[in-house]
């Protein structure tokens, strides 16, 4: 199916010739749809229904504690959220965390991908070691970081990194740095894996040829590796940005949203789970969903990301 998606200009693959659709091809396509149907229906049930229900709830005044006051209120929940300074403050915080963590992850992930790609001996162990943080449950990782920076129990205090009485998790900048570090530590391996897949798409012959022409290592990296990897990089960035924007666990464990480190997801949690205000909380969730769609649309339409290319199917 991916073969029929639009071809971004990044790759110079020849466009497939339009073949006449034969009777057999048509039958096969029909079979394909039939085979896909169960998965599609399952997706509709487990994702389509909840999303639709959330949208429905977001148009109601509906607090679980006051079930009698339930009524249809149209878009007023959305205007409440969008006119409150808390929401925009949280959007800013989330954007800071997203941009900083994804940028650091890209650089680190690229370095690690190059190491994994070039590793001559011990490939297996190297890859396994790098993947360990990604295999650890985020909540557990966040607790590890919290205890590390705890003023009474942590080991970071008193090292060359921090003074004896510094407590980064008690003020905004420090908390943001620790949250970003936790995110980076946890998800760089994922970035590295995606980039490694992209690296393996770069043919060695091009490097050989460039070497013969006298290109330096740096030149070859920026002129050959990066352009050829662009689709893979964009996909990796897309996935990570979407993930990072929804950051919840690490921020929740590290600060619980204190010191103005509340992310949009924590806001949604507070309204939905703590205040059990289903209407307002669903509006927050739907807005997060829309933000995520906008990010994805930006990557796909403006930057021309295509998941098909990344998998080498073009």
């Amino acid at each position: 199916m991916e073969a029929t998606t639009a071809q971004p200009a990044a790759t110079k693959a020849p466009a497939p010739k339009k073949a006449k659709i034969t009777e057999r091809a048509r039958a096969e396509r029909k079979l394909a749809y039939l085979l896909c149907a169960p998965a599609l229906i399952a997706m509709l049930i487990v994702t389509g229904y909840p999303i639709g229900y959330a949208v429905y709830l977001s148009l109601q005044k509906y607090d679980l504690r006051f079930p009698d006051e339930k009524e249809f209120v149209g878009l007023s929940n959305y205007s409440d959220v969008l006119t409150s300074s808390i929401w925009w403050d949280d959007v800013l915080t989330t954007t800071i965390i997203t941009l900083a963590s994804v940028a650091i992850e890209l650089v680190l992930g690229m370095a690690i991908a190059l190491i994994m790609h070039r590793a001559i001996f011990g490939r297996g162990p190297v890859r396994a070691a790098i993947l360990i943080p990604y295999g650890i449950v985020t909540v557990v990782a966040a607790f590890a970081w919290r205890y590390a920076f705890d003023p009474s129990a942590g080991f970071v205090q008193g090292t060359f990194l921090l003074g004896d009485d510094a407590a980064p998790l008690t003020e905004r900048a420090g908390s943001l740095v620790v949250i970003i570090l936790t995110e980076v530590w946890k998800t760089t391996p994922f970035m590295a894996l995606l980039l490694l897949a992209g690296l393996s798409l770069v043919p060695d012959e091009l490097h050989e040829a460039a070497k013969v022409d006298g290109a330096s290592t740096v030149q070859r990296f920026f002129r050959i590796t990066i352009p050829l990897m662009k689709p893979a990089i964009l996909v990796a960035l897309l996935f990570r940005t979407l993930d990072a924007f929804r950051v919840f666990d690490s921020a929740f464990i590290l600060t619980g949203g204190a010191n103005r480190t509340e992310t949009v997801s924590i806001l949604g949690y507070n309204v939905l789970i703590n205040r059990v205000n289903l209407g307002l909380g669903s509006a927050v969730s739907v807005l997060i969903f829309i933000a995520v769609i906008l990010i994805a649309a930006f990557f796909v339409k403006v930057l021309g990301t295509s998941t098909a290319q990344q998998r080498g199917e073009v």
Partner: protein
Amino acid sequence: MRRDRSKRFLAAFATAALSVVTGCGFSDTGGGGRGQTLNWYVFNEPGGANEEAIKKCNEESNGRYNIAYRRLPTDANQQRELIVRRLAAEDSTVDLVGMDVIWTAEFAEAGWIEPWEGDRALAATEGKLEGPRKTVEYQDKVWAIPFTTNTQLLFYRKDRVEEPPEDFTWDQMIEQAAADGKAIEVQAAQYEGFTVWINSLIAGAGGQVVDEEGDVNVGPSATKAGEIVSELANSAAAPPGMANNKEDQARIGFESERSNYQLNYTFIYPSAAENVGEDFQKKIGWARYPRTVADMPSRPPLGGINIGVGAFSEHKDLAFEAAQCLAQPANQAVASELGGLPPTTESAYGLAKVEKALPFADLLRESIEEGTPRPVSPAYSDISLAIQKTYHPPENVEPDKVRDKLEDRLKKAAEGKIF
């Protein structure tokens, strides 16, 4: 060999799966006896007091009912999250609810718990201390039976500072601790425990955040509370990481000798002997919660667990009976002995077990009698969140603005808006 192992693995897997299935379906009988299973959702008391109470009541019921212990997390916010989800979904397996004292109004208003009427109301409140008794009342009805209670004391280092006078104020304490270069341990992370502190400070100046009709009414005492919080946070008496400290960090800080004073629950006393040693425990003195203003007695915080009956339970009569059994004075005494939790029944304080477990029982009783409940409102969790957000982080509190900010947030909360 290999086949053997895989067979064993399969068997283990099947057993595990089976126990999961029965666990979810509640077809097990919990304590192992006969009779109708009643599920008691309550926080997992680490000392084992809840288990003892259940065992005793299951025996006393002569096989008519059989209480099953459904453990909730120890953190109050997490407990509420889990139980609210079940109650909002009208879960009929919730027969008995171990409720934090702050949930009464919310659960009653939402119709999640059954009122105690007639003789039952009398049985639930008779002989109870005034503080805990008030926590089960909402709109002239009784909604639960008080089980255990709790309050904070001012613990201090007898070897380093003098015994605090009766009218000891926060200002004096901060001044003295700062002069000694030692900390005062408090709970100032952005969570429920922070609300506990702020609420006691506000009540200690004669104030409130919500009046008796449940309407937002923030008095000038909110400013005084802000002054104390900001003064401590910006003084030499602020413990490291203050804005992130909960009960346990405060305990650990006190045990590490960095502080002269600690505001905390009584569990820190047995803990001092266990973690540091009997010698250290002997250095700990206790006094009543410090005053917010010099001319008014302090209003110590009031916590604890009440037992309510789920509104969707299919065995309410048995559940009422079981709740009364669980909350009987003998079980309260066991909770004091094993969990360090003070009893809610006046007569229980005379029991030898309680006197032995709580050397400060008299002071506790006085504190509980004069303690301040947290705001009684069905929207309590909104109010608590608003208080936390307004006073956090402690070092950035601006006392002259804090009252307006709190009022603004509480109004938004009351209207069901974002704050």
